């Protein structure tokens, strides 16, 4: 039975993830500071793990299934678009890494909200950013689960719910038990699996098509537009340029990215991660999207999200297909796990400890954290079984909404001394607000994605608020600039 042959390597793989979580849990439980261990891994990531966890977090279902699926129908233009993500890793680490490393140690920050609270000293900002994070992450996690379960269904032939149970439960369990450290280490392994999966599939598709020259010849014959950088006009230049914002520099604002800048060990780890991260993400983007674009002329007749699973099943042997399918599932799980741990951190650290009970005993905190992580995971899981349309709707806003809320307050807070609470507040309100309005009414000035005008408005709001609003306290300036 072909089915079982695909399923077995997958299950072995999931068991491995689970083993790692138990191992990290048993190793870190005797450390004194539970919060710092559970939510940020004791700031101990080395270069390789940092690079991999960063990549694994932002390569999700869309990098392995969605994007290559579009490349399947549009051709080279979509590979060009995917390459925009290549320098994002080094930009994030190079701009945010050392600043966050220093400040998060100073104020014992384990969440992005910890930083925003220290920088702006404002309850409104702390609460809205926490809530935005919890809501958007939950919706995004449901969407990732749906993507994963559908993929599982397409490749193995088992039902959607079976898939959801197998990998959904494993990701919830290992995140709950192992915390951030388990998330980072499993991310690193999942990163390696993604590299292997991409390599297998790319080699297989080029071989099956009789070499790149042959495939290109077929392309020239049947669909020459696929060879152009605009897909014959379908992918316009303003449209593609706005991706330099959406999946390019605005990613600096995503809390799941920024939090990684609080968790690494030393300068050397950061330097290595910048290089490793760029090399690996480039390989994955180029490889997977080439599989999609070339695959259309080797295994024709597929479409959209069905393209990559279809290619996989047809050109790889079952065992290899099982290993391959672990690639995108790994991408999905590693996106979900980091959101899960962050949502949990946000509830415990940003909301409960600040505005709820206040002082809680270490041992107690330990249990509350496990339970919170588990419960969020479970809620997301239940939603994914039969997704309510509101979740699908919120997810449309998740990525851009988080960027709209966090980008300027994060960056300007670090690099602009005059940045203050009034500016950040205005920027968050107008940013999220205008992003919603632009998206709902699909207003796209000059064919650009909504995120571009949104960030411009949010920037103007931030600058006006900062110039005319209340000044930063001396304590804040002392903390961040020591003057």
């Amino acid at each position, binding site marked *: 039975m072909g089915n079982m042959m695909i399923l077995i390597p997958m299950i072995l793989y999931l068991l491995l993830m689970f083993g790692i979580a138990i191992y990290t849990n048993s190793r870190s439980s005797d450390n004194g500071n539970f919060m710092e261990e559970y939510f940020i891994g004791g700031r101990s990531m080395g270069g390789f793990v940092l690079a991999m966890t960063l990549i694994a977090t932002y390569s999700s279902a869309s990098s392995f299934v969605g994007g290559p699926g579009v490349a399947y129908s549009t051709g*080279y233009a979509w*590979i*060009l678009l995917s390459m925009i993500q290549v320098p994002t890793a*080094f930009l994030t680490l*190079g*701009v945010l890494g050392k600043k966050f490393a*220093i400040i998060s140690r100073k104020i014992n920050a384990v969440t992005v909200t910890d930083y925003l609270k220290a920088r702006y000293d404002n309850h409104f900002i702390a609460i809205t950013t926490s809530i935005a994070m919890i809501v958007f992450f939950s919706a995004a996690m449901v969407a990732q689960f749906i993507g994963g379960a559908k993929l599982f269904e397409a490749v193995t032939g088992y039902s959607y719910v079976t898939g959801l149970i197998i990998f959904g439960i494993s990701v919830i369990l290992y995140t709950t038990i192992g915390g951030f450290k388990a998330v980072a280490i499993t991310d690193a392994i999942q990163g390696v699996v993604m590299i292997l999966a991409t390599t297998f599939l790319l080699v297989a598709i080029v071989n099956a098509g009789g070499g790149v020259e042959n495939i290109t010849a077929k392309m020239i014959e049947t669909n020459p537009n696929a060879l152009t950088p605009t897909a014959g006009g379908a992918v316009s230049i303003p449209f593609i340029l706005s991706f*330099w914002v959406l999946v390019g520099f605005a990613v600096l604002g995503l809390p799941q990215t920024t939090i990684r800048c609080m968790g690494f060990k030393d300068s*050397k780890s950061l330097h290595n991660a910048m290089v490793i991260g760029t090399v690996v993400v480039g390989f994955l983007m180029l490889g997977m999207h080439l599989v999609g674009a070339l695959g259309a002329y080797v295994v024709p007749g597929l479409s959209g999200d069905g393209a990559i699973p279809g290619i996989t099943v047809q050109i790889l042997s079952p065992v290899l297909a099982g290993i391959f399918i672990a690639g995108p599932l790994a991408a999905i799980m590693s996106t979900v796990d980091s959101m899960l741990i962050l949502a949990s951190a946000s509830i415990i650290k940003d909301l409960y400890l600040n505005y709820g009970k206040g002082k809680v005993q270490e041992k107690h905190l330990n249990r509350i954290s496990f339970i919170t992580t588990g419960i969020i995971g479970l809620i997301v899981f239940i939603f994914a079984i039969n997704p309510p349309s509101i979740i699908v709707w919120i997810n449309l806003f998740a990525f851009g909404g988080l960027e709209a809320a966090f980008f300027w307050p994060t960056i300007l807070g670090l690099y602009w001394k005059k940045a203050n609470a009034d500016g950040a507040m205005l920027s968050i309100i107008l940013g999220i607000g205008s992003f919603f309005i632009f998206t709902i009414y699909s207003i796209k000035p000059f064919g650009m994605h909504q995120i571009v005008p949104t960030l411009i408005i949010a920037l103007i709001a931030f600058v006006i608020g900062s110039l005319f609003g209340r000044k930063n306290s001396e304590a804040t300036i002392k903390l961040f600039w020591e003057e």
Partner: protein
Amino acid sequence: MNFKEKNRQINKEAKITVGLYVFFFIWWFAFAYGLGLRDISEYTYILGFPAWFFYSCILGYVVISALLAFVVKKYFKDIDFDDNNGEDKNNG
């Protein structure tokens, strides 16, 4: 390095990073649309790929990776992240 020196070094590294980012953008854009917008009958091919794609995406990826490795090694410094309150610690 004391705190101010650290800050200055970090700002410098951030500027270099942004510079590399802009460099990659220009490379990506110039080759893709410089070579790619002509008529398909005039396309040339390298290793089976359209030339614009080869230069913009494949070579661009190799170049930025190599350049990054060089720049990080040459201009990025080891900074102690723990708060040492301005005491002199010569590790740069």
